[in-house]
């Protein structure tokens, strides 16, 4: 275990140190202490290592992550795991706006609640939220899976493409072109795996599935709301 004191050594040194780790690194386990809500912690990682952040983070923690597992032992500010490509990001507390925005792959697990625009424009990432999510989540979500064990706010899945949304609680309202869809056996199977990966003990049968009605896929003047 390598320990890095962010308050003492600074952000640039932290990210440079983590970027220097390659696929064959022996230093596979890192602990970052004194994060104190700093922005851009552990961004752009590209090695199979585990990074434990001992506290809460500011904007864009684990942005564009590849391969690494980043575990925030606190809450995360806006844009956590934005544009993640692969790997895993775990937030013990809550996540602010845009969690997992435009993520292309990997898994984002939020054990608390997520704020608005969770999974906005997601492109393949899997996001599992133990609590609730805010309004405009999964806006223009292209692909991947968003699992919400609690409730979803207004306009869920507005202008959705091919991402799959699973919500156990209430959905305050659905966005344009987002509809409830049948939970078929393959979806139960998929959700079972996602819940296990996210460490949730919820039952897949308690969820509803939402997806695109695909009515906005080709331009018509009436598409302009």
């Amino acid at each position, binding site marked *: 275990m390598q320990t890095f004191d962010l308050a003492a050594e600074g*952000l*640039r040194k932290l*990210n*440079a140190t983590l*970027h220097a780790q390659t696929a064959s690194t022996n230093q596979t386990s890192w602990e970052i202490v004194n994060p104190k809500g700093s*922005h*851009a912690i552990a*961004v*752009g990682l*590209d090695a199979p290592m585990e990074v434990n952040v001992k506290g809460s983070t*500011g*904007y*864009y923690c684990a*942005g*564009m992550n*590849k391969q690494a597992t980043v575990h925030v032992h606190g809450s995360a500010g*806006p*844009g956590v795991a*934005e*544009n993640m*490509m692969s790997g895993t990001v775990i937030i013990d507390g809550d996540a602010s*706006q*845009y969690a997992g*925005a*435009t993520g*292309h792959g990997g898994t984002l697990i939020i054990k608390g609640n997520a704020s608005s*625009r969770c999974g*906005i*424009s997601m*492109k*393949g990432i899997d996001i599992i939220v133990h609590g609730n999510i805010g309004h405009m989540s999964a*806006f*223009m979500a*292209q*692909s991947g899976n968003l699992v919400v064990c609690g409730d979803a706010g207004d306009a869920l899945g507005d*202008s959705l*493409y*091919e991402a799959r949304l699973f919500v156990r609680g209430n959905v305050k309202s659905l966005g344009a072109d987002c509809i409830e869809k049948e939970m078929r056996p393959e979806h139960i199977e998929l959700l079972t795996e996602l819940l296990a990966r996210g460490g949730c003990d919820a039952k897949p049968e308690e969820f509803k599935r939402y997806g695109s009605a695909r009515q906005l*896929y*080709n*331009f*018509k*003047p009436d598409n302009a709301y």
Partner: protein
Amino acid sequence: MARPGSCIISNLTTLTESAQMKDINKSAPRTMPIQSATFSQSINAEIRRAAATGIYDIRGGGAKRKVPHFDDLLFLGASISRYPLEGYRERCDTSVTLGTRYAQNPITLDIPITIAGMSFGALSGPAKEALGRGATAAGTSTTTGDGGMTPEERGHSKKLVYQYLPSRYGMNPDDLRRADAIEVVVGQGAKPGGGGMLLGQKISDRVAEMRNLPKGIDQRSACRHPDWTGPDDLEIKILELREITSWKVPIYIKVGGARPYFDTTLAVKAGADVVVLDGMQGGTAATQDVFIEHVGQPILACIREAVRALQDMGMHREVQLIVSGGIRTGADVAKCMALGADAVAIGTAALIALGDNDPRWEDEYQMLGTTAGAYDDWHEGRDPAGITTQDPDLMARFDPIEGGRRLNNYLKVMTLEAQTIARACGKSHLHNLEPEDLCAVTLEAAAMAKVPLAGTDWWPGKKGDSF
């Protein structure tokens, strides 16, 4: 009471007079048919088209309306009070270095004319390759666009700027690190405040794969970024991008010509190395015609305001300014330099150099209901020149090597023209051109460029003067 017979005679007389009057009217001066300036033929045609279809017009390109432009400015040249440089032999440098504020590796270009961002998807792969070939041969940079970075573009572009757009189509950290600079696109001149749309006709398997979307569906590009909303957020976003790229490459911020003073100020505050300012004549792959023609300002009106913002912060020349939107000639380049820009970007002009809207394809333009020079339905993917298309047969018409050669030639000519003017003004570098070298031939241009109306020492809004 009149007798019946007299009434008949009277009627005959009236008929005769009427015939005579008709003859007279034929030769009499009469009112010409007057077309309304308000309801012009093109406006009426658009009303009829809208009434028939219920669909607003989407097209590519920039504003086609006539606006005050660089043609409304003139260089004064040297005279007794100014000493010219010899036209061919004395040195007149053209290089520019971009990204000197924070980046470890600023970009140095041989010429101050860059290629603006145009996406793979909107353009074919060979067209992107040609842009890279031509720009590299001329010693300048090219720019990706919405849709990500293609290997042929990276491979043929010695200096490649990677656009960071709201859609984040194809965005990944590997390409980010392969780029020579990053351009955070906040807006563009054709549609400040607007997003984009790539229609399904142009979504080939390859385009779809790069954008993580099914083939054949229309792809929207959002009008604002998904993970930041204001200038304070943008500052943090730039911090993240710098950390991911280890502070090596310059970060540009591109804005449309909306509020150039404030947008430039905020871009600098957010940490930009370079501000890219795009006027309303700047092109787009596709958006609503009403947006292109009615939102944003002409580039002429933007440059001095952006320079003023930089000067007010003490950042002029420390944060470089690239301007674009309707730049066509070396004279335009020189005028931008004189107004305070560090470099320019061309898009539409580069496409024309490649062969877009070439009269050789006139028969096919006619079949598409248009004519060479007016073709702007780039989003439909049926470009006869094979540039703005993903159709394999049309793409095969375009030779990227020949396209690159033509673009290089064009960039060389523009540079030589700009040097010719600079030497005539006594300047040993294009950047030494200054507003004092210019006058304006219209009041509007004088006001926008803040240079004197020709024959006067005055421009509207000049400090200390009033109407």
